């Protein structure tokens, strides 16, 4: 494996590194606005079977009927003008397994973002999506021989319908919420992964989502199935250039961990601040399975994302580790949901947020234990750090508990940087900026350590960059 420092420098995930775009030169363009014709166009370009088109049209109908949930969520959602978004853009080039065959502008994009370097250094496979479609997809040969499938959702639908159809739309149905309905109508790209029984994928699989076009909506759909006893780690990163108009990212991620399986899903979200990042992520954990969401949100103007685990089988475990950083004019509305639907299940939610300038970080959580379950446990810890006098934080947990011998505990705290700590560091020669940066990194350190090493070092660097200008 390459030296960690070299790997870190090649990751190059900072905001400015992502703030570039190429000329819009698309072979397939569904135009602006959302109508049944747009949905049919997308399905036609992909050559989909009738059942998928029917699914999409049913979802469009649900999306149109459903209201924005502004009775509990921020009214900023009403700023989205669905009639001005472009729902499908593709260059028309076939996806390749070699970077040399990828169109130049796409290849340069991912090289600037360090994706090929990562792949060489430590990944088992990469899926690189440019606007609506995957441009590159590759996986190490020995994993293919073991029966691991790692393709984009379109290929998964076409080549593996018996597995795909069994689980697709079952964890997150069309009518779950307005934005899952939208995704179900116009989804394109995203990953389909199947890991066979007993196979443990030793290195992470990664997907990288890149938005290039203005006024665009990216709607990837990811479905991961870990069969009995299987294990994998999946990482996703994302960036977009900064435009004056709004960009929408509305993804759906469904995970299925069958008996004894383990899935770790790591996200580092660093969208530009004109992006509305509205994502539905949910996992079903069967008997003895473990699902772990590791979620870091640093970018976007508004993020609404609540990774969930339905603990369906006896002894299943769910965990969400979340870091949210809300800088100037950002609102990170994140959290977790744990639904204990079987005996002996346990869940753990750890959330840390940092609010800088007038940034707003909100935690929204749900823990549910019905009367039918027993011996379940949940622990939730939320800590918030407010850097400036105009920073804001909110916590909105919801606990529902019945059943036999269940226990739930939740705690949350809000604080500012310790003046004693800052004074101590400044007395030892650090500038105020360095001291604040160190204190903030210390606040999130125990969570950052849980990210893969390559990401944790870069994450600390990203946080330091966000702190610039926040002091004084």
């Amino acid at each position: 494996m390459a030296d960690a420092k070299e790997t870190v420098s090649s990751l190059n995930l900072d905001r400015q590194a992502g703030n570039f775009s190429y000329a819009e030169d698309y072979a397939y363009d569904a135009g602006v606005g959302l109508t049944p014709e747009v949905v049919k166009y997308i399905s036609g370009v992909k050559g989909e079977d009738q059942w998928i088109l029917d699914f999409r049209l049913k979802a469009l109908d649900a999306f149109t009927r459903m209201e924005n949930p502004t009775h509990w969520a921020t009214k900023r959602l009403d700023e989205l003008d669905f009639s001005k978004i472009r729902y499908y853009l593709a260059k028309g080039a076939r996806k390749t397994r070699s970077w040399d065959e990828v169109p130049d502008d796409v290849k340069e994009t991912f090289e600037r973002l360090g994706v090929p370097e990562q792949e060489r250094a430590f990944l088992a496979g990469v899926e690189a999506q440019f606007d609506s479609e995957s441009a590159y997809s590759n996986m190490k040969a020995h994993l293919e021989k073991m029966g691991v499938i790692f393709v984009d959702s379109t290929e998964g639908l076409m080549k593996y319908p018996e597995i795909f159809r069994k689980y697709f739309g079952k964890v997150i149905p069309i009518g779950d919420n307005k934005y899952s309905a939208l995704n179900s109508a116009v989804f394109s790209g995203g990953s389909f992964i199947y890991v066979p029984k007993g196979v443990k994928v030793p290195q992470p699989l990664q997907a990288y989502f890149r938005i290039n076009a203005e006024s665009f909506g990216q709607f990837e759909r990811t479905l991961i199935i870990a069969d009995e006893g299987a294990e994998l780690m999946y990482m996703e990163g994302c960036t977009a250039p900064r435009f004056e108009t709004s960009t929408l990212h509305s993804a759906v991620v469904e995970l299925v961990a069958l008996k004894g399986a383990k899935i770790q899903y790591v996200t580092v979200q660093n969208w530009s601040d004109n992006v509305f990042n509205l994502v539905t992520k949910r996992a079903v954990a069967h008997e003895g399975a473990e699902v772990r969401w590791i979620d870091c949100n640093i970018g976007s103007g508004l993020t609404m994302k609540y990774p969930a685990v339905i603990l369906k089988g006896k002894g299943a475990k769910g965990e969400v580790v979340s870091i949210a950083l809300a800088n100037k004019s950002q609102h990170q509305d994140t959290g977790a949901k744990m639904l204990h639907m079987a005996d002996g299940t346990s869940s753990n939610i750890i959330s840390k947020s940092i609010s800088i300038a007038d940034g707003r970080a909100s935690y929204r959580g749900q823990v549910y234990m019905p009367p039918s379950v027993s011996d379940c446990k949940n622990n939730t810890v939320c800590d918030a750090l407010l850097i400036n006098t105009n920073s804001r934080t909110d916590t909105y947990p919801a606990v529902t508990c019945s059943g036999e011998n269940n226990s739930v505990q939740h705690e949350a705290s809000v604080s500012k940087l310790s003046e004693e700590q800052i004074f101590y560091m400044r007395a030892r020669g650090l500038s105020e900026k360095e001291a604040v940066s160190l204190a903030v990194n210390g606040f999130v350190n125990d969570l950052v350590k849980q990210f893969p090493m390559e990401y944790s070092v870069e994450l600390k660097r990203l946080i330091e960059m966000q702190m610039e200008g926040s002091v004084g």
Partner: protein
Amino acid sequence: MNPFFDSDIFERAAFPDRKNQDWRFSDLKGWGAENARRLMSGGFNEVDSYVASGTAELLDAYGKCFEGFDRVLCADAEMTYSVKGALKIGDFKTMLSEREEEDFLLVARSRGAYGEMFASLASSSGNVSIEAPEGVSGKVLVIWDSSKYPALGLRIKAGRNSNLEICSADFSPVGGLYFKETMLDVSEGARVEFSSFAQSASDARIFEMLSADIAANASLNGASVCSGCSSIRKEAALNLLGVGADAHMSFLQNASGKDWHDLRTWQRHKSEGASSRIDVKNIIDQSARASFIGEILVGKAAQKTKAYQSCRTLQLSRCARVDASPILEIEANDVECSHGCAVSGPNKDELFYMACRGLCDKAARALQVEGFARSVLEKISSAEFLNFIYGRL
């Protein structure tokens, strides 16, 4: 139906619905317009004799102990007062200006349909004003039987540097819908101890509002105990308005059978340097439900705020259910704010320990429940009132 009641409210007022986040854990059918209309229409004749006995029992206790307490009795055809000290006690007509009375009802109306219903009944129901002038100390016992007065307005004003202790006991022995609004105005430097206890019949539904304005260097402490109430919703708002203002309220909801206890609180910090704390304990058994939504709101100007909240639930049976949502909305950075929420069943190690020492399971569990409730009961400042409550639990 009460002839003074404006029945148009059922058509025009905003009754709670699924979208109203303040009511998201509540019994929406039970609190809906249709059920409210049914309860207001009367026709409930059966008297819960145990609940009804509470008034007489407390009056008897008042006569024997409760030394130094003034008394307000809203349990007969006419409200009566027994004023021994320097407090000013009377009804709204004699004590408040028209403007003050209107302000009182305005606060109620801001609570939605149920506040409007209270305001509609206010002119025909019991309204009591208790005032401690500057520097004066006093204690008052308020006894309310809702079958005599379906709505009670309690306006309590503690003047600068005064000391006031209020014990309020509410009994609803007959089915129906009842309302209580308590408004506390705690002036600069004043100290108020406020304790309340409520019991009701199985088909009685009670909507209770408490709002307290606490000025600079003033304090409000107290406890609210609800035991044997089938359907009760309490809304309590603590407004911390000046530097050094402090409020600490504890709530005990003891629900069994098919009881449903609903508690909504706000700790609003509008100025800097104030502190507040709310502790909630729920004991739920059989198929009872307890719900709690508690909000700590710290405004931009409220630096140096200290605000805490805890909600603990002891769940005694499989079908009992608790819904809890402790909320923080913080807009100032130099603050200490935290909350905690825990739910569990009886501690098995403790039960084993007591069994080893010869206690039967029933006695051991009863001890556990008493131990769990104790931290709230200890906040009741009057030993006489506490003894009375223990006898009724």
